[in-house]
């Protein structure tokens, strides 16, 4: 099926006030067609109010080999985590 068209990463904002979330990817010849393909694939059931498409080749990704230096040090410094606050009753979305 694939004819080697460029790959685009798709981000959807499901409603106002939320940020765009990565939902998947599509093939398309250019950005405008990528937006339309994303609309057809990912927003058919009213999932979104806004779509971003980004050329997949433009995404710089962290390497699995660097997992330890990148992410491990974050785990042992408990003072970085907001776990020492008492949450008042009735507060939502924390």
């Amino acid at each position: 099926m694939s004819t080697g068209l460029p790959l685009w990463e798709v981000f959807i904002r499901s409603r106002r006030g939320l940020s765009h979330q990565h939902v998947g990817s599509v093939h398309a010849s250019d950005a405008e067609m990528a937006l339309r393909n994303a609309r057809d694939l990912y927003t058919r059931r009213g999932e979104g109010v806004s779509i971003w498409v980004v050329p997949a080749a433009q995404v710089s990704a962290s390497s699995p080999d660097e997992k330890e230096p990148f992410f491990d040090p974050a785990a042992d410094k408990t003072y970085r985590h907001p776990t020492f606050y008492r949450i008042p009753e009735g507060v939502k979305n924390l």
Partner: protein
Amino acid sequence: MSTSSLVDNSLVAQYALQLGDDALILSQRLSEWCAHSPELEEDVALANLALDLLGQARTLLTYAGTLEGRGRSEDDLAFLRTEREFRNVLLVEQPNGDFAVTIARQLYFATYQYELYTALRESTDAEFAGLAAKAVKEVAYHRDHAVQWTLRLGDGTEESHRRMQEGLDLLWPYTAELFAADSVALALAETGVAVDPRTLRPAWEASIAAVIEAATLTMPGGSWQPRGGRAGEHTEGFGLLVGEMQALHRQFPGAAW
């Protein structure tokens, strides 16, 4: 239903059948692309267009069945009529051809449907006005889809340009029927129920010409203007299309899932 006391119901039923059959048959043709498109993404895109059209067809055929007063449901009308009883224009039944032919058909028909539904929103018949208000948003997207592809194929490679031009030329003769002075539409246009098809042509042609020029293609011409779809006289491939569409329902009447 608001005009039922003033307007001949059987005429309104015929008009609903014309528009409903246009949507139903094009939906069936587009569905044939499912699992055969050049790209997986395009498979989904074409199936989406087909589903939009099927939704329009359901509303229109249901309405036609109600007005007709013979107790026929949307399914009865879609699956139990014979070939000669369908009232769709010849354009929508034309075979898919290559992808460019399908896009040419989409460009011609979606642009027509966009103009038609835009005008039909003002219909004095509440059912038609309601359907048109909803469907005009769908067909605006169908038109955009066809325009985007026409631009890319026309202004793409030498081969895509050639194929797009051949698609436009091949189907151009069938566009005349869209704007023909059909007796049902004309009679209903007098009371504001239907749209006089002839009035849609200038805006349609201007829109098509602009796209074709932007796509570096040439506006087709010629004087051959086949018609007959509104009278049930269809082209060669139509029997096969109807046969395939109705096979399941005829083998298993009332099948549902």
